[in-house]
């Protein structure tokens, strides 16, 4: 399969790889996908409580090159945005930017889910209404 230059660039030089302290009240964590499907993304955000600006974003992804690129791009895009602006990012924007072929569209869907899950987790910590249905949680 031929990968677009942008996918190759994110795969070779992934942005914002890492881990934030998931117990911090300013950090939201989204974990989406499943190992048996071949894709798991964890995306984390650190939000400034005063400005609602996403000051930092980190990801780790188990998955194909397109999945890695989609989540890397997602962190790049949400950093510096307000939470509400980050929620406006759509998977189709990621497909367009990375020139993903149809068979890889699910990677972009997963990246959008990861953004929503991370924001949902953060909102939950602040007692707000939170769409948490996409977040995978450790049982017990």
């Amino acid at each position: 399969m031929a990968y677009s230059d942008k996918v190759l660039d994110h795969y070779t030089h992934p942005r914002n790889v890492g881990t934030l302290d998931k117990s911090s009240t300013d950090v939201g964590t989204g974990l989406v996908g499943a190992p048996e499907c071949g894709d798991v993304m964890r995306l984390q955000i650190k939000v400034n409580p005063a400005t609602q600006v996403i000051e930092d974003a980190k990801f780790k992804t188990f998955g194909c090159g397109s999945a890695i690129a989609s989540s890397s791009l997602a962190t790049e895009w949400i950093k510096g945005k307000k939470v509400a602006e980050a929620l406006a990012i759509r998977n189709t924007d990621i497909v367009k930017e990375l020139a993903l072929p149809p068979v890889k569209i699910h990677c972009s869907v997963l990246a959008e889910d990861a953004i929503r899950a991370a924001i949902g987790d953060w909102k939950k910590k602040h007692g707000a209404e939170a769409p948490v249905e996409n977040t995978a949680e450790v049982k017990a």
Partner: protein
Amino acid sequence: MSTEVKAPEGVKLPIYMDNHATTPLDPRVLEAMLPYFGAKFGNAASRNHSFGWEAEEAVEQAREQIAKLIGATAKEIIFTSGATESNNLAIKGVAEMYREKGNHIITCATEHKAVLDTCKRLEKYGYRVTYLPPGKDGLIDLDDLKRAMDDKTILVTIMAANNEIGVLQPIEQIGALCKERGVLFHTDAVQAVGKVPIDVNKINASLLSLSGHKIYGPKGVGALYVRRKNPRVQLTALIDGGGHERGMRSGTLNVPGIVGLGKACEIAMNDMAEESKRLTALRDRLKNKILAELDEIQVNGNMEHHLPGNLNMSFLYVEGESLLMGIHEIAVSSGSACTSATLEPSYVLKALGLGDDVAHSSIRFGIGRFNTEAEIDYVANKMVDVVKKLRELSPLYEMVREGIDLSKIEWQAEGH
């Protein structure tokens, strides 16, 4: 992530290490074939002139060379277009010829598709097929085979060496059991012939399939060994016509291909002992270098009963396609079929009980005649480098390091 490990002096990229898929043609084989593309163009079935005699002589020499490699006689070798045809001819040919005797066939779940799909077709025509499940190490249990046999069993077809995980099935014991029960025994020996010693009498084979392009010979040519005595095996032909190959396979013989197959067998015969030692050493070098640098690796298939050049490893918590992307200058195969529309991982690895996630993380290395120690070192370093980097990216690897049990997590796949 793919630029760190530099190719050392003498290593030319890309590196071919997928020798179970196909092998490069040995230059000695090419040399033997060339005259039969030129002046020696005769039809081996032309009995009344020198062009025909010349072709026939070359074909008969190849028959001898092949027979010698597997301990058969030349008259027991039937030429085909390749092992897929050999497997079809063996299984369908026996099924039809021995229909009155019984309708039951026994095979294994990890056979090549040329055997499995042939058996599936026969099921549509009223045959019963037992697909023996292998153990975790890829080997079949002889007691399972014994239990599966009944008075309607006409054929057992079990491969000599597996094309993905390289395990060598206990064909000598299987053959003995079949002989005891009066059941015919076919073995798809495509990956084993020329790599490990095979003697059709020692293993009591009734039928044996082999292929040219897996042993540094040409594509499009193969052979089927058909036993002529103790007992004589009869087949119904798949292809009717001029009655070539004792009526079992009509069609003008592919003389250059057959010459190449014969030469490839002769070379294998002469070089096997030394080559298998060398490939085993290279295989172990690759395995040990990787295991020394990386944790969470699973080596698939019984390593005691194993092809010299095969290594199948699962790199846990790293996804197969991203791994292949990082090692794009190395030609290997993945247990992950992630790029296909079905997203189905290898049925062979799944038959061993590997989960989809582990199967997705598997790489098959097929080391062959033309691989060098320098290439092995390059591949080992590259694998270590790419796997380490992908694990830095892997949330699963991080969670496992933290002691989280991944099976206790409620995973949510994307909505599709």
